Structures are given as C-alpha cells and as structure tokens.
C-alpha cells in the first residue's frame, strides 16, 4: 500500500483544535486534581478514623478500577443520579480530576511520610507551634520531594486524557479517529496522532528526570 501523509495537511486546524482541547482538559484536571490530591493526602493521615476511612476507600477505588469505567460511570450515571445534564467536558473533567486526585494523594502521602521523624522531634525541641511546624518545616520539604512524582502523574494524565474520546469529547484522539474514518487513511492519521502525543509527552518525561536530579542534589539524599 502507498502512504500519503499529505492528506493530513487539510486537517491541520482540526488536529490543532483537538490538541488544544486535550491540553486544556489536562491543565484543568492537573490544577483541580493536585489540590484534591493534597487534601486527600492530608486526610489519609488525619487522626479521625472516619475521615481516614473515607479517604482510603476513595483512593483505593479509583486506583483499583480502569479509568475508562470511571469515565463511563460519570458520563452515564452521574446525570441520572443528580438529575442534571452534564456536558461531556464536565464529565471528562470530573472523572479525570477524581482519578488524578487519587493518584496524587498517594504521592503526597509518601512524601509527607518521607520527611524524617527527627525533623518533627527537632521542631518540638525548638518549641515551635504546631502551625509553624507544618507550614515552615514539613510542608516545604514534602512538596519538594513530591514534585518529580507529581510531574510524572501529570504526564500520565496527559496520556489518560485520550480516553475522553470514548465518550465523544472532541480531543486529539477523537478528531484523529474521525479524520481517519472520513478519509479512510488510518495509518497516516493515527501515526501522526501518536507522534503528536509522543512529541509532547517525551520531552516532559525527560524534564521530569532532570528536575528529579536537581531536587535530589538539593536535598542531598
């Protein structure tokens, strides 16, 4: 068979729009998801058993089921339960935010745990009030340690965001599949779509490695 990549030139704008939707969705979910993850991470170390229990069930459930089924559940079931229409952007954002919240909460929890016990003891020895202990000693170190893993969580999210095409949101993957169906040239179109994803995710993963090296050096561990 002969390949003809020039067909794609006609669809530049559509692909760019799709890519923009993907990026927009990723960014929104990163901001919302990381905030949620941080709160849930704290909740999982809370003294109250009920708070800890709810947070754990949420995290384990979202980590233990496929994102696709989460997305379908939110897309089909949430409108029935709430009795309101949800746009596919809204359900995409809700589903991916809940997913990112679950995975980043684990990242935050691990980094909170990695701040040594001796730091806490030092705080007590210095007679620092509880608020200062948390905001000036524990948090800065924990967040710094969490950064590399959070960045790779964000790259995963960028890739997982392609799933929203399955519920009809016009992201890069959806646009790509539409073009490939209309032009009957799946090889060219899908390859280019894959390359676009790669062109964004690959430099990001390299950046994660770089940042990780810097932070490890800074923390001298």
């Amino acid at each position, binding site marked *: 068979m002969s390949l003809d990549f020039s067909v794609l030139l006609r669809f530049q704008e559509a692909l760019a729009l799709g890519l923009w939707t993907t990026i927009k969705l990723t960014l929104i979910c990163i901001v919302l998801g990381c905030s949620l993850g941080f709160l849930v991470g704290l909740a999982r170390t809370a003294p109250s058993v009920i708070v800890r229990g709810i947070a754990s069930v949420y995290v384990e459930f979202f980590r*233990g089921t496929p994102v696709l089924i989460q997305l*379908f559940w939110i897309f*089909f*079931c949430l409108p029935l339960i709430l009795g309101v229409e949800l746009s596919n952007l809204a359900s995409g954002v809700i589903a991916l935010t809940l997913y990112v919240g679950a995975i980043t909460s684990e990242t935050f929890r691990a980094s909170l745990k990695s701040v040594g016990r001796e730091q806490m003891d030092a705080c007590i020895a210095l007679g620092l009030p509880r608020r200062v202990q948390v905001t000036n000693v524990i948090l800065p170190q924990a967040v710094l340690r969490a950064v590399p893993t959070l960045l790779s969580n964000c790259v995963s999210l960028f890739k997982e965001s392609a799933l929203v095409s399955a519920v009809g949101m016009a992201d890069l993957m959806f646009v790509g*599949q539409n073009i490939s169906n209309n032009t009957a040239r799946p090889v060219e179109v899908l390859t280019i779509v894959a390359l676009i994803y790669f062109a964004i995710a690959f430099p990001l993963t390299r950046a994660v490695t770089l940042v990780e090296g810097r932070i490890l050096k800074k923390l001298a561990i």
Partner: protein
Amino acid sequence: MNYTFDFNAVSLGPLIEGLIVTLELTVAANLIGVILGFPLALLIMSRFAVIRWPATLFVEFFRCTPAIVQIVWFFYCVPMLFNVFLGSMTMGILALGLNLMAFNAEAYRAAIQAVPREQLDAGIALGLNPFQRVFHIVLPNALRASIPVLLTNGIVIFQQSALVAIVAVQDLMYQAKTLATETYRPIETFTIAALIYFAVSFPVSQVVGWLERRRQILTS
C-alpha cells in the same frame, strides 16, 4: 433523586464471561511483558548505540503515547501495513503485551542498575565470564528487586485491558457496555463491573504493598 435501583436487572453471566476474557488478555500480556521485557532491558543498556537506540525508541514510544492510541493503531494499521489479519483477541494481546514489555523493561533496567557494583566486581574476581555474571549475579538480584514493580505494571495492564472494548473485543468492559444499553440500567451495570475490576486488582495491590514493606525491613 428519584431513581430506583434494581441490581437484579443485571445478569452476571455475560459479565463473568467478560471477566474471563479480560483475565486471559491480562495473563497473556503479562507473559509477553515479563519474559520479553528482560532481554529488552538488556538491549536498552547495551554498549552499542546501534542496538541501544532502536530499543530505547521502542520503549519510549510505548511509554509516551496513550495506550488507547496504541490499541486503535494496532487494530487499524497492522492489517493494512503488513497485510496480516489476526483475530481481535490476538491483536489485543499483542498491543497490551508490547505496551507492558516497554514498561517492564524500564522496571528491569532500574533493578539491574541497582545491583551493587561490588557484586559484579566480585564476580570478575571469581573469574566468572560475562554470561555467568548476568545469570548468577545480575538476574537473581534484579528479578527479586523488580517483583513489586512488575506486579504493579501487571495490575495496570489488567486495568488498561478495558480499552480493547473500544475495538470490540468482548471483555468485561465491552459486556458491561452492551448490558447497560440493553437493560437501560447503566448505574447498576457499571457499578458491578467496576466492583469486579476492583475485586481483582485490590488484593494484588495489597500484596505489592506487603512485599515492599517486607523488602524495606530486609534491606534496612
């Protein structure tokens, strides 16, 4: 909310059938990934750039593109490009297996690099040849160290296998979708399907957590 739940409307039969297909996909993909991931890890660590570069490109490509794109690409493009027509199950296994191979290769690489330098030096001092050093020193050490990551990757593939539903492999996700449209009971169907996925992956992830804790105690 005025929705009345009716979990009886969901027949478990098709879901169980789907689960079996999902498990078959998972096991087959894991066999490919666990076995072929190791030689791939050796390739990406090769001294020769001609070997290292293509292997690295392969791994990075699978790690940096969405799994759904890979699966759709496989289903549409492999038959057209190579003129081979395989069953949808075989295609699904191949796509998931290659994806897992790339992720496992990274896990093996990290584990191999974590094998202490002194152990290899000791191997040289004992006069073991490179082949013996790999088989008797690197391999046992690295395999043990990589088990938690391999298991985690295995669960991830179990979850990612839901994506083959999009290309009409009749796995758990596909059966759930069909059932939801047939019965008009999406909430019940998707909830049960999600619980089935959870029931399989949660115990495995608990085992991973236990292995990691045990390893930390052993190494500290």
